[in-house]
């Protein structure tokens, strides 16, 4: 099938099998290997990307079904060598990146939560952050530092709004 997809701001045209999954196109077709494959069954969340703004598991989306949409992967958040996003920087400062394998998925999933909070001018509570993480599995150490990273990112974003 002929597919047209906007990935990280660039229009891409290619041919894909109807049974191809979005994560396979991103990694194998477009070389965007920041998106990981962990479980391959929709449980671990390492393959989370934004699809038309919403966080989704790219192993549970057909490339064909995503056609015509805008996809953002972790590579699309900041140019190579560019500054980290507020969430990425806060996760780094709170040691929330751990071994790093689950991090791209967490950044893409949590980005939606942080963006929503910024739009609404609110900050998520700790239970809300933990609930938002139910789709992202970390097998290293746990979630405390990740939760602190989100809290730091939301606080920095709120302070930025006040300064602005």
């Amino acid at each position, binding site marked *: 099938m002929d597919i047209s997809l906007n990935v990280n701001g660039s229009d891409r045209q290619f041919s894909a099998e109807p049974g191809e999954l979005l994560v396979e196109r991103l990694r194998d077709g477009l070389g965007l290997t920041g998106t990981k494959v962990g479980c391959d069954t929709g449980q671990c969340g390492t393959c989370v990307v934004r*699809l038309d703004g919403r966080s989704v*598991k790219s192993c549970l989306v*057909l490339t064909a079904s995503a056609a015509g949409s805008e996809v953002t992967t972790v590579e699309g958040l900041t140019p190579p060598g560019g500054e980290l996003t507020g969430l990425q920087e806060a996760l780094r400062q709170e040691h929330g990146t751990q071994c790093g394998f689950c991090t791209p998925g967490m950044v893409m999933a949590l980005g939606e939560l942080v963006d929503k909070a910024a739009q609404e001018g609110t900050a998520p509570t700790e239970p809300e952050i933990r609930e938002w993480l139910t789709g992202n599995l970390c097998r290293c150490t746990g979630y405390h530092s990740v939760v602190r990273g989100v809290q730091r990112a939301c606080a920095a974003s709120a302070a930025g709004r006040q300064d602005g």
Partner: protein
Amino acid sequence: MILTELDYVRPAGLDEALALLAGTRGARVLAGGQSLLPDLRSGADTARLLIDVRRLAELRGITRTGTGELRIGAATPLADLAADPEVLARAPELAAAARANGDPQVRNLGTAGGNLLAAGRPTDLPVAAIAAGARVELAGPGGRRTATAEELAAAGAPPGSILTALLVPATGPAAAFEKTADRATRYPVCAAAVRITADGVRVAVTGATARALRLRDVERRLAAGGDHSTEAVLAAFRAEPRSLFVPGPGTSAEYLGHLAGVLTARALARAAASA
């Protein structure tokens, strides 16, 4: 990659989708795909043609009908259902059940219709739809008809039909949903939904039972006793036949019957408090 031979089509409208479904062997409706795609990959399910209805305007959105119902398009994502102000105010058990499914990413793509039709999976929406006294709208080769959520949970959608909407009586806040989730799968060990109406309470349970069920005998016992205390609710559940509760890994029928009673009592207390 789905390794079996497969075609994909995005129909322009519902009529085209129905024609494709009627005219193609092995055709399946694809909406959010959050259950169907993993099943196609594992071989647990099969399809020769996927008819993608996710973007069909006729299947999306939440509106108030002239008769005071909420019409929830079948392709509405669970995340939208969980956050909709009208649903939260007028059918809170439905919003809570939508929010209880899976995780945020699954709720972003998973749809109301897919959740109601996830045969064999103890999803959370059917039990809330039954307690709410909801109906579903089905489009098929013979035209459109409605069925109750209870009938849908019992029999599924007829072959060749597409679930187009969920119709929920928007009767207000006196309703609640409670769930004990399996830690790994997020599916309910047991979930209960209740709605308090002028005619009494409606009680529905899933997870602990073979499928989402309305428990009319429990409702009758509660109405006869006029008492919704935890003890009264537990007694009403103890009077149910043990065979109603289907043990799973690490659970017994006795435990599930007790859990169903506890969750129902909690839901009734919350529903009464918000009435």
